C-alpha cells in the first residue's frame, strides 16, 4: 500500500447478524488532506469510522490506518489519532474541563496553553457538569479534547451537527490550521458548505458501498450546470438536444440544465438566437449529493433528475 495514504480501505465488509452494514466499501485518504466522507443516514459512515478505530472488527477486506492494522495495533494507533464521535455521551457528573483533561492525559498529555486557547475560541464553559451541557456544548468538549493533544489523524464523525454558525466557522478555521500543521482529517458531514470549503477530496457511500470518490473538481465535471438566458429571439430546437434537461422557455427567456461536456456546444447554438443576458450556475454539491443519495444513486451520472 502507498506510504502517502493515511487510510486505505478496500472491499470492506461488516454485518451485524443478518443486517449488512458495509458491503465492499473502498476509501482512500491521502496524508495531509481533508477528506470528506459523505452518504445518507444509515449508509455506514459511523460503522466505518468505528472499524478504523478498532472498536468494531471488520468481517473481511483490506484495511490500513497510518500503516497499521486498526484492530491489532489499536493502542499504538490511538496515540496518533484523535476522534470526535457523532453522538457525544459524557460522564454526567464530570465537568467538561475534567473530561478534556482525562481524555487528553490518556492520549499522552494536554498542552495547557492550547487547551485554554481552544476553550476560549469555542466559547466553552469548562466548569459545568456534563449533564447540563446542550448537544452543541458536548460536541465542543469532544472537539477540544481531540484538538488539544497532538495527533496525526483526526477522525471527525459529524462534528458540527450541533454547533451554531459562529462556532461552525471557528471549527473550519481549526481544521484548516490542523491541516496546515500536516495533520490528516477524515470528516464525515452533512453540511455541504462545510465540505465544499474544507475538503480536498470526497468519498460518497451508499448502502455500505462507495459510489463516488475523487476531488470536488472531478466530481463537478460529471454533473450539470444550470443556465438562464435572455435572447433576442425565442430559443427553439434545444429541448431534444443531447445533454440538455428541463428546458423551459417563456418568450425570450429560457432556462435549462446541461451536462458539463455539452456546455460549449449548447452555448454555441444559443448564440445564434442573440444573447442579451446569461447567468450560469456551477453544479452545486447539493445536486451532486442528491443524485447519489437518491433511490437510483450509483447509476450512470446524468440519467435522471433528482426531485
Amino acid at each position, binding site marked *: 500500500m502507498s506510504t502517502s495514504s493515511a487510510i486505505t480501505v478496500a472491499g470492506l465488509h461488516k454485518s451485524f447478524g443478518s443486517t449488512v452494514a458495509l458491503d465492499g466499501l473502498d476509501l482512500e485518504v491521502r496524508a495531509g488532506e481533508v477528506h470528506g466522507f459523505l452518504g445518507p443516514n444509515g449508509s455506514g459512515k459511523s460503522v466505518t469510522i468505528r472499524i478504523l478505530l478498532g*472498536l468494531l472488527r471488520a468481517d473481511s477486506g483490506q484495511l490500513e490506518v497510518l500503516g497499521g492494522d486498526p484492530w491489532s495495533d489499536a493502542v499504538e494507533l490511538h496515540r496518533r*489519532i484523535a476522534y470526535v464521535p457523532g453522538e457525544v455521551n459524557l460522564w454526567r457528573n464530570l*465537568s467538561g*474541563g475534567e473530561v478534556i483533561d482525562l481524555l487528553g492525559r*490518556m492520549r499522552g498529555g494536554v498542552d495547557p496553553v492550547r487547551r485554554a486557547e481552544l476553550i476560549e475560541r469555542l466559547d466553552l464553559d469548562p466548569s459545568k457538569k456534563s449533564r447540563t451541557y446542550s448537544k452543541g456544548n458536548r460536541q465542543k468538549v469532544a472537539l477540544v479534547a481531540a484538538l488539544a493533544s497532538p495527533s496525526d489523524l483526526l477522525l471527525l464523525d459529524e462534528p458540527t451537527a450541533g454547533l451554531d454558525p459562529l462556532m461552525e466557522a471557528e471549527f473550519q478555521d481549526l481544521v484548516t490550521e490542523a491541516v496546515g500543521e500536516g495533520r490528516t482529517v477524515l470528516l464525515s458531514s452533512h453540511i455541504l458548505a462545510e465540505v465544499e470549503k474544507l475538503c480536498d477530496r470526497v468519498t460518497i457511500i451508499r448502502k455500505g458501498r462507495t459510489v463516488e470518490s475523487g476531488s470536488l473538481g472531478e466530481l463537478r465535471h460529471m454533473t450539470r450546470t444550470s443556465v438562464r438566458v435572455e435572447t433576442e429571439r425565442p430559443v427553439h430546437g434545444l429541448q431534444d438536444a443531447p445533454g440538455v434537461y428541463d428546458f423551459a422557455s417563456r418568450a425570450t427567456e429560457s432556462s435549462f440544465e446541461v451536462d458539463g461536456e455539452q456546455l460549449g456546444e449548447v452555448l454555441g447554438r444559443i448564440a445564434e438566437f442573440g444573447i442579451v443576458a446569461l447567468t450560469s450556475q456551477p453544479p452545486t454539491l447539493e445536486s451532486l449529493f442528491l443524485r447519489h443519495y437518491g433511490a437510483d444513486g450509483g447509476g450512470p451520472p446524468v440519467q435522471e433528475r433528482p426531485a
Partner: protein
Amino acid sequence: MATATVAPVLGALENQPRSGPVTGWPSILRLQLRLDRIKSLVWIASVVALVVVSAISVSELYPDEASVQGYARLVSDNAAVVVQAGPGYGLQTDPSTGAVLMNELSLWTIVLVGLMSILLVTRHTRSEEETERAELLRSTPVGRHAAGLATMVNALLVNVVAAGAVILGTIASGFGAVGSIAFGLALCTSGLLFAAISLVAAQVAATGRAATGIGLAVLAVSFLLRAIGDVTGSFLTWLSPIGIGQGVRAFADERWWTPVLSLGLAAGVTWLAAVLAARRDFGAGMIPERAGRPAATRWMQGPFALALRLQRGALLGWFCGIVFFAAFYGALASEAEEMLADNPDLEQFFALSAGSSITDAFLASAVLILALLLAGYGISGVLRLSGEENNGRVEALLATPTTRTRWASSHLLVTAIGCVGVAAAGGLAVGIGAAVTTGDSSLVAEMLWALLAYVPAVGVLAGVAFVLWAWVPRLAILGWVGLVWSAVVGLLAQLLDLPDWVVSLSPLDHVPSLPAEGFEATGLVTMAAATVLLVAAGLVGFTRRDLGSS
C-alpha cells in the same frame, strides 16, 4: 388580518377536549406495559414460583399437627429465625401448616414485591426523565402528572396480578382460602406502598441511580425496623411497611385492617409525591445542580481514577448501608440469648449441639445476609462496565491509547477493593455491635473474618456477571441470577428441601458460616482461583468482540 388568522386557532383550542394534569396517562400506561411486557411477567412469575414451590414443600414437610408443633418449638423465641422470618404469628397460640408457611415465606415475598415495585417506579419516572425520549413524549399533549399516574397504575396492575396469582397458587396447593386471600392482600398493598415511596424518591433525587438508591435504602431500613421490633417486641415493627404487611397475620386470626392501613399510607405518600412533582422542573430533582471543576485534579490520570470517580457514589451508598445494617444486626445479638431463656426446648437444642451457641447461629445468619448484600454491590460494580458501554461513553476512552484490558480491569479493581473494604467494615460493625451488647470482645475479630471469608465467593458471582458481559453483552443482566440463586439457597434451602447438588451451585454455600461452624480454607482457595479464572476468561472475550454503542 392578524385577528382573522388568530381567531380560528383560538376557536380550535376552545373546542379541544378539556385537558388537565393527567391528560394522556392511558397512552403512557399502554407504552409502559408494552415496554415492560417481558420484565413484569418474569417478576410476577418469580414471585408466584417462590410462593407455590414453598407452599408445596411446606405441606410435605409439615403435614400434621405434631410436625407443626415441633417446628414451632424450634422457631419461637429463636432470634436467629425471627430476624430472618418475622414474629411467627400463630405459631405458639394456634400452630398450623399455614402459619409455618407464612413464617418461612411472607417476609421474603414482601421484600421481593417491594423490590419489584421500587425498580418499576424508578424505571418509568426518574430514569426515564434522564433520556431525550422523555422530552419527546412530554411535548405531546400529556399532563404534568400523567407519567406518575400511569406508573402508579402500572404498579397497581402488576401487584394485583402477582397477588391474585399467589392467592390462587396457595389455595391450589391445599391452603385455606381466607389465609391465602389475607396474604395476597398484604402483598399487593405492601408493593403499592413501596411504589409510592419510590415515587417520592423520584421527585427528590436528581438521577435514576440516586432514586433507586433511596428506594432500596427505605426497603433496607424497613427490614431492619421490623427485625428489631420483632426481636424486642417493640412498636418499631409498625414503623416498617414490611412489618405492617406481615401484621395481617394470615392463617393466624387475620387482622384485615393492616392491608387497609398499607393502602391508606400508599395513597397518602402518592399524594405527597404529586405535591413535590408540581414544584420541580422537568428533568431536575429538588436538589439544585452545583458547578464542577474547570479542570481535572492531578490524580485524575486514567481509567482507574475515572472508574473510582464513577463508582464513588455507589460505593459510599453500599458502604453506609451495609455498615448500618451490620451494626444493628450485631447489636441484636444479646437479644438472642434473652429470648432463648424463654424457650426451654430450644435452649436444650443448642446445649446439645457442641461448639455452637444461639448467639453464634444468630450472627452466622446475619453475616449471610450481609454477604448477599455484598454480592449485590460486587455485581452492580462489575455491571457498571455494561452501562458505560451501552451509553456509548466508552468509545471516547477506547479511542485513546488505552487497552480494553486496562479499561475493564480498572472497574474490576475498583469493585474488588470496594468489596474487601465494605466486607471489612461490615464485619467490624457486626462485631463491635455484638461485642458492645454481649460484652464478648473476641467477637470483633471473629466477625471481621466471618464476613471477609465471603469475599472470594462474592468474587465468583461478580466474575460470572463479568464473563457474561464480556462474551455476550446482551446477557449481562443475567449476572443477577447468581445472586438470586444464592439468596434462595442461603435463605430457603431447608424450606424448599433442595437437593445437595443444587445447593452446592451457590458459591456462598461453600463458605464456612463463621462463627457457628469451624474455619475451612479449601473452599475459599478454590473460589479465589475460580474468580481469577473467570476474570481471565472475561478479558479474553472482551478483547475479541465488537464494542456495542448507543
